[in-house]
Every structure is written in structure tokens, then in C-alpha cells.
């Protein structure tokens, strides 16, 4: 839960550890500051029981898990999940947490079905309520949004998952801090959480769209209006998706004037 969380704002990651006078152009590029979270829970593997499966799109579904000892998380964090075969063989993957921290002892994950995917394949073809898997987490405070600063969210495909946790958190808590989301999907049918997206969201369709709606990649024209409305203190930008999307979207942000040390990136590989 959020009371285990302290944030250190956007201070440099580790100013003391930086080589001094290294001749490096210290300000041109930068990693954003830490958002530190409680780490006690991260190392323990916990049993999670699948309680519900909800189809989102033809290729994605949400899996609700009961994790009674869940220590809470911040929107944007992920966990490590593992499946074990009878001979002891283990497959482990990272998944973002889709649900907002709500203290319910349940969390939700949304998985894309990867062709021949070892873990996502099991979830999409074998898993049913009552099954158990193991999780450890939450992990990485870096991509977390505590709800304390204006957030500009850019995602593509299943990259919307950790961003949705932020949107849900803001709604659930009735937060008034500005938040905007720009999401890219192949088509309206492939847009995850489409029924839940509200005024905060702008959609971009890359392959097909309803008549009259343009089709194509995310461009500077999508990003510019969002950066034109600068909230007090400026935006903290969160970018999530494939590496290709992360590179593209982060370049658009930099070109539009977003400071590099206020862009946090979660790459799904």
C-alpha cells in the first residue's frame, strides 16, 4: 500500500556516485530520479490463485489473481511470475500490474498472447480459475507513479498495461493531478481496455480504424498538443511498449521539448 512508499522526486539518481569533473556533458542526457519503494516483499515467492479471466481483445486477456500476502504496489510496477513443470523445470517472466493498488488482496495482469509463447501460451490456452502460479514483487520503483505529479503516458500494445494501473489509481482515488494518455493499437478491436478509456486518453491506430479516423504511426502531431498544455511543475512522462515503440515515442517527446530526465521508459524487450 502506498504508505510504505517514499519518493525522492526528480533528484539525480546518485549524485555522490557520479565521477566529478569527468568531462562528461553532465546535463544533456539523464536518468530520472528514483522513486524508492519498500523492497521487503520483492524476494519472496508467493502463491497466487487465479480467480477470474476476462477477455480484453482477440489477443489479450486479463487474469485476476488472489495474492493474500500481497504487500501492495505503486501504479506502474511489475512482478516476476513463474510456472513450474512436473520435472522441476521453471519458466519465469516479468508482467506489469494492471490493477490499481486497492488493498483487496487481488491483483490483475493483462497478457498478450505471443505466438508459441511459453508462459503467455499457458495462460491463454490452459489456465482456468482455481489454478495457482507463483509471483514475487512488486519490483522496480523506477517506472512507478505515486500519483503525486502530472503524468503524461505513452503506450503501445500491451504497453498500456502499467499505464492503465495509473489511470485507474487516479480515478479510484479521485486525484485531480493532471494525467494524459496517448495509446497506440493496431485497430480498435486490438485496443486493450477500450471500454474503460476516458477523456484523458487519445488513441492512435496503426493498421485500421473506423471510417474518417486516420491510420498511421504515432507522430509529433499527436505529442505536440499534450506538451503545449504544461501543467504546473511540468509532466513526468512514462513510455511503455516494445523497444521499437519506446525508442520512437521517447524521441518524439525529446523533440517536442520534454526534458530527458523526466522520461521514464519500461521496455518489454
Amino acid at each position: 500500500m502506498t504508505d510504505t512508499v517514499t519518493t525522492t522526486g526528480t533528484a539525480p539518481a546518485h549524485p555522490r556516485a557520479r565521477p566529478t569533473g569527468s568531462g562528461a556533458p553532465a546535463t544533456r542526457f539523464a536518468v530520472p530520479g528514483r522513486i524508492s519503494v519498500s523492497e521487503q516483499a520483492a524476494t519472496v515467492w508467493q502463491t497466487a490463485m487465479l480467480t477470474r479471466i476476462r477477455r480484453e481483445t482477440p489477443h489479450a486477456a486479463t487474469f485476476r489473481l488472489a495474492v493474500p500476502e500481497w504487500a501492495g504496489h505503486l501504479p506502474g510496477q511489475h512482478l516476476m511470475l513463474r510456472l513450474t513443470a512436473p520435472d522441476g523445470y521453471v519458466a519465469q517472466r516479468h508482467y506489469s500490474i494492471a490493477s490499481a493498488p486497492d488493498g483487496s488482496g487481488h491483483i490483475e495482469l493483462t497478457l498478450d498472447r505471443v505466438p508459441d509463447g511459453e508462459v503467455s501460451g499457458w495462460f491463454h490456452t490452459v489456465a482456468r480459475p482455481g489454478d495457482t502460479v507463483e509471483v514475487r514483487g512488486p519490483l522496480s520503483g523506477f517506472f512507478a507513479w505515486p500519483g503525486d505529479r502530472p503524468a503524461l503516458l505513452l503506450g503501445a500494445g500491451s504497453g498500456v498495461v502499467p499505464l492503465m494501473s495509473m489511470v485507474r489509481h487516479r480515478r479510484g482515488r479521485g486525484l485531480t493531478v493532471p494525467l494524459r494518455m496517448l495509446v497506440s493499437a493496431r485497430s480498435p478491436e486490438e485496443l486493450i481496455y477500450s471500454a474503460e478509456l476516458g477523456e484523458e486518453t487519445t488513441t492512435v491506430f496503426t493498421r485500421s480504424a473506423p471510417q474518417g479516423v486516420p491510420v498511421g504511426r504515432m507522430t509529433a502531431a499527436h505529442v505536440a498538443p499534450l506538451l503545449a498544455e504544461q501543467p504546473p511543475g511540468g509532466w513526468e512522462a512514462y513510455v511503455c511498449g516494445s523497444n521499437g515503440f519506446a525508442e520512437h515515442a521517447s524521441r518524439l517527446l525529446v523533440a517536442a521539448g520534454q526534458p530527458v530526465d523526466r522520461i521514464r521508459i519500461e521496455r518489454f524487450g
Partner: protein
Amino acid sequence: MNVTRGFTGRPRVPHPGLPPGQYDAGEDWPVLSAEVTPDLAPADWSFRIDGLVERPHTWNWDAAHALPASAYDGDIHCVTGWSKFGVRFGGVSLDAFFAVVRPHVSATHVVAASHTGYTTNLPLADVTGGRAWIVWEYDGRPLPSEHGGPARLVVPHLYFWKSAKWIAGLTLLDHDEPGFWEGNGYHGRGNPWEEQRYSGD
């Protein structure tokens, strides 16, 4: 053991070079940096070693290339689960840089810093004795920027987050100081053979 109903997994391909919990990524080389890929030209790159050394020194691109060339041929392992076999990085052994700055006997650890401000901590013993490199070539070609080009640190016997991209310098210390991921819950040393992924592992 907590067997997952109905899970069999991929056919097992035993590989003595594969640390526990890792899989062979084959041709893939995933990118997992948390910051914007910097647009850093070789002419703007520099590498400095300071802290507990006799003579702190800064190398520019040409000066670093004037040191004796050395390559790493082998495997790399990422904490997210993939390993990559038979990679070839070309550059200079860190030992050649240390020979110039001469570490003080009291130095026990280093903090490696990137031109982005990313940091990671390592025991000094893990980056000396032919176990670490500053590299600018991958497979005989310039190292791509998303993989840390123009130059990165490579410490292949540890998880790859220790191999700081866009390397800017090393500071030698007489104590350990957590870097970026280490301060975010990752393990202090990161030995893949002992599965030291997160602090407490």
C-alpha cells in the same frame, strides 16, 4: 515445489553455459534501458577513472583507442532471463586503463557511471584481472547506440545491468555504494550462477 497444472514448458535443451533460470535468446538482443537512448557522438565521448587512484585520468575517443586492443568472446546474461551465446565485443581491457591510473591499495569497489547519469556498483576484483572491458565494437561493427554505443562497459561474468551503457567513468571507493538498479531493489553483486537477481537473493 509448486507444480503448475498443465504446464510442460519448452523441450529442455541442456546447455552447460546456461545459468539457472535463464533461456537462450538466440539471435535476439533485447534492450532494457530505463532512460532515453542518448545521441552521443564518438567525438563527445570521454572516459574517466578517479577516486582512490594515484593519477586520475580522462581518455577521449582517440586516446582510448590507442591502448592495446582486447576482445571478449563469450556469453552474456540479463537479469530479465535471457542469455546470449557467442557474442564478440571489441575494445580495451579495463586493466590497461587501470595501469595508467594505478588504483590505491585501499580501493575495494567501483561505481561505474554513464553519460546519462546511470550508475552501477561493482567490487574492484570483478573489473580487474582480464574480466572487464570498455568496448566500442559488436561483431566487428560499431556498437549501436541502443546497446550502449559509442562505448560501454562489459563485465560478462555478472548480470548485464552491471555492464553500464554509454560509459563515462569509474570512481574507485573503499566501500560499496548502491547504483541505480541496486538502489531499486536489485542485487549488489549480480552473479548469474548464483541467481543473485534481487537484494536478498
